[in-house]
Structures are given as C-alpha cells and as structure tokens.
C-alpha cells in the first residue's frame, strides 16, 4: 500500500499483533477466580511508573476516582495518559505530577465549566508534554483495533488537518476505492481503570448507561482494574447474561468502592458534586492550591469513606442522588 502521509505524533502503546496475542496468552488467566482486593493492592500490583494508562467513562462521568486518588497517594510517576476525553481525572493526575505525557483527543478542559488551570499550567510551562493529537473517534478506534487484535483500523476522519498531522496515524491509498484513507494504529494501554454499576467477584460487569469506549477499552488494556458500586452473585450475572458488558477474562482486579466516581457522575445513581469540582477549579489556579487540595482530600484521608465524609458525607450524597433524578435545580458554582 502506498503511504501518502505520516503523522508526527508518538506511537503510544502499539504492539505487533502476534506480540500482543503472546502477552495475552502468558498473562491473562482463564480461571474463574476471586479477584476482589483493596484499592491499595490493585494500584500497587498493577500500576507501574512509566505506564501508559487509560481511564474509563467520559469526562466527569463514571470515572474510577478511587483509583485516581490512590495513584496520587502511591506517588506513581512518569505516567503517560490517554486523553480520550479525559477531564477531571487527567487534570488532577497532571496537577499531582503523576502524568507528564498525554495523547490528546480532549483534555485540559472541563466542558461547560471552562478550562483546567492545573494541567494547562503544566503544559504551557513544558512540564507536561502533549506527544500526539487525535480526535474522540480517533482514540475510540485505536482501542477498537487493539481489542480486535489487528494493527490498525481504517477511517475517514483526521484527514487534511493538523490534528491528523500531529497524530500517530498514516494516510494510505485505499486499495479498494482508490481514495485516501486514514489508518488509526491500535493502542494497548498498560493499565486501564473502569468504574461500573455492579460486577461479580470474577469481574463480569454490568453498566446501566452509555458504554462510551469501555466495551473496547476493557478488552484492549493489558491490565484492567475494575471498581464497582456493588458486588453481585455470579448467579445474577448468569440469569441475565445479555447484560454483561465486560467478561471476567479481561479483568485483573475487582474493587468495591460505593460512590467511587465522586465528584464525577454515576448515571442513574448520583450526579456531579459541582461544589467539589468548583473547589478544585478554584484551588488549582495555583500550584500551592493544588498542593492544598491534595493534602486535604488525597494524602489527608485513609479511606474513600473518610474522603466522602470530608466532602459532606451522607447529606451531600443524598443531595447528589436527588440531583441525578432531577429533584433539585441545576447549580453552577464554578461560574464566574
């Protein structure tokens, strides 16, 4: 095939398909075994300095914040992160100096809430590098290629733009149509963390919401840490197997963390804690503020329950439930 154009972006997390299969054969157990463990154990066993990491959900929705905080607590360094609409998680991890390289589809912003002071400061001062650009579909399809065990997926986005020029894609002449077509390389994150509504002790999981990219990401990540609101019996999984969106085969750790997405949303359960997000956005305007936030909410607590207590406890969580079900009005404390 004739290569018409090559993006200059760093090719993150790509492996030869046979090498990728070989890794799966050697490292992924086929045994139904109890994978439950603590947040601390999951992060210390499966997240290593320098890893290429990816977080499930989307933006401030269904994010495994319990794992994000633990990565900061264990002072993991030189991580590379998939900026696949990674917002609050990425902002805090960059601000805490855990992540210093990013491939960006959408990062450094909090959607309607405005831009991210902490992570933008790190990029604009050269402390965090953007090693490649892509789009949301571009990232999504990197995971799709990887979960299929193939080296790339052809697509018709990113063409003709600097986003494509700064990506890790290649444009070739399609041997079927004769038209230029973009090839999106597979991406196998070293570790992904995904928060779900419920799963069994083996990791068979159900999500009561849009899946975003988690169908693909769960299957392509080399290691998968799953945090869950609730652990259910395997019999419940087997009685309605069509509800399983992640099978146990790809899961390495199961961690029960109720409200584990806070201050992000868990669809059908609790809404964003805008007050808490606003506090982060305000404090993170300075590095001192970032340190203050981290020492209070991350280093200063010994459990996720302890953290939730600090954020307003059951009273706040009940409010977030009512807000999710539209029983409280919209608030925007981050609005200037």
């Amino acid at each position, binding site marked *: 095939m004739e290569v018409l154009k090559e993006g200059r972006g760093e090719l993150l997390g790509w492996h030869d398909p046979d090498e990728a299969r070989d890794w799966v054969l050697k490292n992924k157990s086929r045994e139904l075994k109890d994978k439950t463990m603590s947040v601390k154990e999951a992060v210390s066993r499966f997240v290593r300095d320098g890893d290429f990491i990816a977080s499930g959900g*989307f*933006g*401030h*929705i269904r994010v495994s914040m319990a794992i994000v905080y633990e990565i900061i607590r264990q002072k993991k360094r030189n991580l590379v992160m998939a*900026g696949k*609409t990674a917002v609050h998680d990425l902002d805090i991890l960059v601000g805490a100096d855990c992540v210093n390289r990013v491939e*960006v*589809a*959408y*990062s*450094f*912003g909090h*959607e*309607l809430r405005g*831009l991210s002071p902490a992570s*933008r400061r790190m*990029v*604009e001062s*050269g402390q965090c*590098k*953007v090693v490649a*650009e892509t*789009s*949301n*579909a*571009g990232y*999504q*399809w990197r995971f799709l290629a990887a979960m299929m065990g193939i080296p790339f997926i052809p*697509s*018709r*986005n990113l*063409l*003709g*733009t*600097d*986003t*494509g020029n*700064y990506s890790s894609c290649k444009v070739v002449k399609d041997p079927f149509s004769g*038209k*230029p*077509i973009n090839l999106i390389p597979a991406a196998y994150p070293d570790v992904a963390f995904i928060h779900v509504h419920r799963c069994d002790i083996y990791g068979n999981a159900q999500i009561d*919401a*849009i*899946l*975003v*990219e*988690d*169908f*693909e990401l769960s299957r392509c990540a080399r290691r998968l840490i799953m945090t869950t609101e609730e652990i259910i019996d395997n019999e419940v999984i087997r009685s309605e197997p069509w509800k399983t969106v992640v099978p146990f085969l790809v899961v390495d750790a199961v961690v029960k963390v109720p409200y584990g997405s806070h201050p992000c*949303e868990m*669809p*059908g359960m609790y*809404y*964003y804690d805008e007050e808490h997000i606003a506090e982060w956005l305000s404090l993170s305007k300075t590095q001192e503020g970032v340190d203050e936030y981290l020492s209070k909410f991350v280093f200063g607590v010994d459990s996720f329950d302890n953290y939730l207590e600090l954020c307003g406890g059951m009273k706040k969580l009940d409010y977030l439930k009512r807000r*999710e079900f*539209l029983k409280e*009005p*919209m608030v*925007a404390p981050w*609005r200037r």
Partner: protein
Amino acid sequence: MLREGKYNVREFLAFTGASVLEDKKTVFVGTGFPIIAAMLAQKTHSPKLVVIFEAGGLGPLLPELPVSVGESRTFHKAVAASSMHDAMSLSQAGYIDFGFLGAAQMDMFGNINTTVIGEHDLPNSRLPGSGGANDVASFAQRLIIIIAKQSKRTFVNKLDFLTTPGFLNGPNAREKAGLPKGTGPYRVITQLAIYGFDKKGERLKLISLHPGVSVDEVIENSQFEIMLPDKIETSPEPTDEDLRILRQEIDPAGIVLGK
C-alpha cells in the same frame, strides 16, 4: 452591534442556532450553545429533530441542559444509550445531517482551531483539542459553527493549528484529502451575522446581518475578506415564546445564556 434590549447577545445566538436546524433531521451536537440551540429547535419548529451525542446518547428527550456531552441527561428517555463507536460509526456511515460546533478561531474556509494558540509543542495557550469536533466536521453532511465573539482575533487569515476541517484550502480539497463527498461547512453564526459559503470558492459569504449590525462592522471584525451577497437580509428575531423557553425551560440558571 446587535440591538439588545428584548434579548441579550447570547440568547440571540442560541435562537439563531435553532433557526438554521430543520425538523426530521439528525444533529450531532457539541457542548454549550449547540445543545441549547437543538433543545430550542425541538421545543419550537422541529419537534422531530433527533439529537445525537458522541458518547452514545441517541435521540434523548433532554430534561435540562447537560453540562457534559456524556452525562445521563444525554440519554434521558433516549431511543438508545449505546457507545461512542456506535455514534461515530453511524456518523461516518452517513446518518448525520447536521454537525453543530462551537469554536475559538476560524479561517475563511471554515476550518477551526481548538488546540493551541502559539506553537504546538510549547504553546502560549493550550486548549482542549479536537474532542469529537474533527469527527463531526469530517462526517456530518452540513456543519454549523457558532463563534460567540467574531473579531480580528477569531476570524483569522491563518490558524495557529487546523484542528477541525472546513473546506481546507478551497474547492475540492476535502474530497482530495479523502473526506466524505458532499460534506462541509454550511452556516457560521456569530454575534454579528449569519454566514454561508460561496459555492465556487468555498469561502465565507455573508447571508444576513443581525438587527442593528452594519456591513462595516462585519468587515472590520475579520482579518480575511468576507464575500458579500447582492442582497443582504436581516436575521430573524426570537419571539417572546422563544425567549420564555430559553429562560425558563432550557437555561433557568443562566449558565450559558447569562442573566
């Protein structure tokens, strides 16, 4: 300047966004104004407009303004809560009539920058990047762009970074690059006017001025030359009912529209 009084600029932009949408079509929306415009269109002239969100919300009945394009509101009473792969594949396969985006910087061909101001590797200002914008602009049959503040800083000769494709560098450039045939920018809406694109040169061309705006203002607030039509129309104004829906039903907290 837009004659304010009955409404503010932001309300006018939201109304204008809604006015270019059509019933029984699909629209793929970005955060902020595009969502509000689609909600208003659904509540007025286009009750069967199907709203598509990139993260997987297909055809929701939006109960309030979503803060994110991936939150539960985006699949509230939807026909499907699926995935990004599904939303993006449907788009690439031709199911999207309108793409609707906000932008920071645009050139005369409708190309958009939302990535950096300055150099890419050490930028003066780092912006969020493409998100789903490059995808929507590549795949949607007709792209609508809202730029809330048209000025010499936002209507530029040369983008710092071409994040999202308009007509690239002119006629036939999209097809030559491999983008789907017949797609591209359709309307640009700013605080001053509504624009389309000249068929021959694929360049920005004025359609209508908002009430109180002069042609000179439009020309002064752009680095590049804007093509002028033989007859310049006046943009339609929102009715009292449009304003009531915007203020009471869509954004009562004034998050996007202001108070």
